[in-house]
């Protein structure tokens, strides 16, 4: 057998074509390009502050925001009364609380979404039973649930978690249902022929085959979950990034509000990168 791989065979049998090599080389300058817009925004912001286009209490300087962020995360927390929303030194506590609320609700949404999606995609019976119901529920705007949740649970983190759950659920359900339904029939036939019983097909074929699309759904769902976190933190709690921002608004601390926005942006970005890295690692087979 003298045949070799197309392209240049690397030791692991990985094909390195000139195209991929070139793409790798180009990546670095492109990543730097992504910094251009944030820097531009920062520059405009600084100028707007210098020229005092808006009163400085409403438009603080980037520097003030930066020191607020520094104090938020690295300042010493002063002992004080309970029931007060702290800024100084309370960053990690607020962040951890928000992350945990989001994580809990998202995790439940993922599990329920996967089960529901697999059921809808795999079983005609389940689809006939649940499709009209889920499709109708899906059409309800996320924020339309807020008044009901507020009446039942109050404006507090519990309501917030329920909203996160609802918001995060649909992307998982839709991605799972669609991708499972699109699994090639040949893959199912092959598995059946090789001895996989019907009851195990979902684990052996449907789930792995659909995984790349499901992961895309999970990413969307996580982004949504993170954006919903603030809803439950607008009342009934003194910790969480949202609670901090709400308190900052009441106290007229604009720089602190902006710190909250930066925290949301940063965490959302990092979470998506992590999920993307994980998905590259585990579904590298589908990389194009």
């Amino acid at each position, binding site marked *: *057998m003298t045949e070799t*791989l*197309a392209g240049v065979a690397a030791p692991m*049998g990985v*094909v390195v074509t000139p195209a991929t090599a070139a793409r790798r080389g180009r990546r670095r300058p492109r990543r730097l390009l992504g910094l251009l817009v944030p820097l531009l925004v920062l520059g405009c912001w600084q100028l707007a502050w210098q020229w005092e286009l808006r009163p400085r209490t409403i438009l603080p300087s980037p520097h003030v925001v930066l020191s607020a962020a520094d104090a938020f995360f690295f300042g010493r927390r002063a002992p004080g009364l309970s029931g007060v929303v702290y800024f100084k030194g309370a960053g990690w506590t607020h962040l951890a609380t928000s992350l945990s609320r989001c994580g809990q609700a998202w995790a439940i949404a993922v599990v329920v979404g996967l089960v529901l999606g697999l059921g809808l995609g795999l079983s005609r019976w389940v689809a006939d039973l649940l499709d009209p119901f889920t499709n109708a529920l899906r059409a309800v705007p996320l924020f339309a649930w807020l008044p009901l949740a507020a009446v039942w649970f109050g404006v507090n983190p519990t309501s917030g978690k329920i909203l996160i759950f609802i918001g995060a659920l649909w992307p998982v359900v839709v991605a799972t249902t669609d991708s499972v339904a699109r699994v090639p029939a040949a893959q199912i036939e092959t*598995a059946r*022929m*090789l001895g996989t019983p019907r009851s195990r097909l979902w684990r052996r074929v449907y789930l792995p*085959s659909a995984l790349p699309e499901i992961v895309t759904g999970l990413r969307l769902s996580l982004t949504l979950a993170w954006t919903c976190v603030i809803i439950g933190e607008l009342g009934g709690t003194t910790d969480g990034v949202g609670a901090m921002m709400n308190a900052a608004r009441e106290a007229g601390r604009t720089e602190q509000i902006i710190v909250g926005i930066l925290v949301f942006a940063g965490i959302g970005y990092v979470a998506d990168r992590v999920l993307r890295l994980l998905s590259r690692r585990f579904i590298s087979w*589908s990389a194009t």
Partner: protein
Amino acid sequence: MTATPGRLVATGVCKSFGTLPVLDGVDLDVSAGRTLALLGPSGCGKSTLLRVMAGFEPFDAGTVTVDGEPVTGPSPTRGMVAQAGTLFPWLTVRQNIGFGPREQGGRDVAATVADLLEATGLTDFADALPRQLSGGMRQRAAIAQVLANQPPLLLLDEPFGALDAQTRLRMHEWVRGLLAERPTTTVLVTHDVDEALLLGDQLGLLSARPSKVVTLRDVPFGAERGRHTLADPAFVSLKASVLDQVLEAS
């Protein structure tokens, strides 16, 4: 219970898709360990016949049995490999080959897999993903994946159709060697007369749709077939007459 397993018998197999009749009373009898090459005009239902034998396609009338057991659905005792390949893209070559034995809770999966990796010349690519392999390697892996279950019956649906001519010729020699070591009743569907004559012990010719078997004859070449056979005058004249028959049938 027969002595050597893998006798395939089809009698009066009929199949239509809606109002379109595809198979019209196909009769076949392949004795254990032999290779039947099926030729026929394009679109005559060769693939459908193979899918019927694999148990993927229900049929309207007739019977298909392997060692007397009627075919009612897909089974690890009947392995089929199609042109597009049937490897799972998310599994490595090793995992793909081990898939069948593992699904059946077999022991010595690792030994079976190592043996087949060796036989396919893919030992060095055991941990590669299917997309990292060349077309020929992929088809060898797909055949190994099916043979891992040691099926009495192997069904090949134009398995080398997507390969270039040289690779195909190498694959023919490789398959001959593989099946010599692992006697398996094989039905090979192809449109390539060279392939049919190089690999088949028997040659079946299907008529145009709705198809039935019009000729069934033995191939008069022994085990020592290979690229040199292509130049054999007997081969050349047989090829010409078979080609005439195929073209006449369409």
